[in-house]
């Protein structure tokens, strides 16, 4: 993957496949601690402990013939190559939490990339799932809750062109503001 935001999109698809109705993503960039981390928490169907072990170590599990995915191992490799790691904990019937830690200034760390693009596609594709997205960079942060937006929108869909455009701009502006907001009317 070229960007961490693509890993995030891929890992959030796991939560959706697990029938989560609430998916919470937190991304924290902490230049002082020289770390970038993110956590994805869902209330989907979860996994039994054996499965967690297998998913984390797909190449050492020996002779299971079951197809194992690539998403989590790819994320693990991406984190480890920056001196970081990933953590996966899951409870069957309750949900899953996966987090990843990266060395912020490590030369092999992929850029975070287009978080607005990742969130826009998810929110408009899965209208019956609640997403909470929080992004912090140093002391700046913002939080988006689709539940809050849906309460305002009522019956109007996120995929209405005007709503989609608004959401796209909202995400882009808030992301830019985190980095000092060189967007047009920045007043930071």
């Amino acid at each position: 993957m070229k960007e961490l935001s693509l890993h995030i999109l891929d890992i959030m698809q796991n939560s959706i496949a697990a029938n989560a109705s609430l998916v919470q993503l937190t991304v924290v960039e902490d230049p002082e601690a020289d770390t970038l981390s993110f956590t994805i928490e869902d209330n989907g169907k979860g996994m039994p402990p054996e499965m967690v072990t297998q998913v984390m170590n797909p190449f050492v599990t020996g002779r299971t013939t079951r197809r194992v995915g690539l998403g989590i191992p790819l994320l693990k490799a991406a984190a480890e190559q920056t001196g970081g790691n990933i953590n996966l904990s899951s409870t069957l019937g309750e949900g899953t939490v996966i987090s990843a830690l990266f060395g912020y200034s490590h030369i092999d760390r992929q850029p975070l990339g287009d978080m607005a693009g990742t969130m826009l596609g998810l929110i408009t594709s899965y209208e019956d799932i609640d997403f909470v997205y929080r992004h912090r960079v140093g002391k700046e942060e913002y939080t988006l809750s689709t539940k809050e937006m849906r309460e305002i929108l009522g019956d109007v869909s996120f995929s209405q062109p005007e709503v989609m455009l608004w959401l796209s701009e909202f995400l882009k502006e808030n992301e830019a503001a985190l980095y000092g907001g060189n967007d047009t009317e920045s007043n930071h």
Partner: protein
Amino acid sequence: MKSLADLEAIRKKTLDQVTLRKDEDGVRIIVGMATCGIAAGARPVMNAFMEEVAKRNLEHVAITQTGCIGMCRLEPIVEVILPDKEKVTYVKMSPEKVAKVVAEHIVNGNPVTEYTIGAAE
């Protein structure tokens, strides 16, 4: 800055302007967003469709992603389904190809055969 207050205004305006149609009357665009698809560039393809559809203000188009289409070598894959028509599968899509698919297929009803799975095989 865009704020939640804008949403309220958009809602009112949208409710005034359009009679909300049901999804089954409309066009469906489905972008494969499994690991392979994402790695091959499916996200910018989806975002390009969203932008193009919003720009043309096409009201009856639902763009969604799915975790499971899965033919790595042909990703990014996009399925387009017009009402009462066979599904058309576009392969090896890129943001550059999107405007043409929207203009010719979604607006005018003529699939862009050179981008379809049939042409790639």
